[in-house]
């Protein structure tokens, strides 16, 4: 089970910000999220959305260990 965190407008859009989802890798996680909410799936793949696994930014694919924390980060607005 990965722990999925959504931030900023992604959390507003999804209506949640913290959820546990079964997935072995990022691609599987994206597919599971898109199956449950196609609009969210599209937003997560949108321009400027970055992904952090266990608080480290990753590009492209990543294997998810048990208990991995996956965060979807929309464009950062600064403080």
């Amino acid at each position, binding site marked *: 089970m990965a722990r999925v*965190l959504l*931030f*900023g*407008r992604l959390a*507003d859009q999804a209506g949640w910000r913290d959820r546990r989802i079964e997935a072995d890798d990022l691609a599987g996680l994206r597919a599971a999220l898109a199956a449950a909410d196609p609009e969210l799936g599209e937003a997560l793949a949108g321009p400027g959305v970055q992904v*952090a696994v266990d*608080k480290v930014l990753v590009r492209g694919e990543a294997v998810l260990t048990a208990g991995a924390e996956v*965060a979807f*980060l*929309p*464009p*950062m*607005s*600064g*403080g």
Partner: protein
Amino acid sequence: MSVSLTDRPFEPGALVTAFCAGREETGAVATFVGLARAEKGRATVLELEAYPGFTEAAIGEIVDAAMRRFGLQDVVIVHRVGRIAPGEAIVFVATAAGHRREAFEACDFLMDYLKSRAPFWKKEHGPGGVRWIEPTDRDRTDATRWDQE
């Protein structure tokens, strides 16, 4: 060096007092306080979201870079998260150096980063509703000044 987030109002003056105390070889302390503007009633509350752990780490990396680049003695950054009322402090940056040019430039550099690239997501609650804020063109331009050197 310290970077922290807080969801409670904080007092920049108290941070300045602590930061300046007991410095015998620091000639220069530059500070910046960012305050929430009322925008003449257009903005009533600012809401800032961070990713605890990730956000401090990302800011900490920039602080390390600034310490080396400007030869700083010390840096303190405190950033507010959550709902912020007009007039309240959003961000505090203090830099300590032997001389003033380094202290000023480092403070300016850190603020440009914090305002344009730091991992925060910002919402403005106003009479017209809620909107997410993205960096302005000027924020982006200011931040790239440091890349070109």
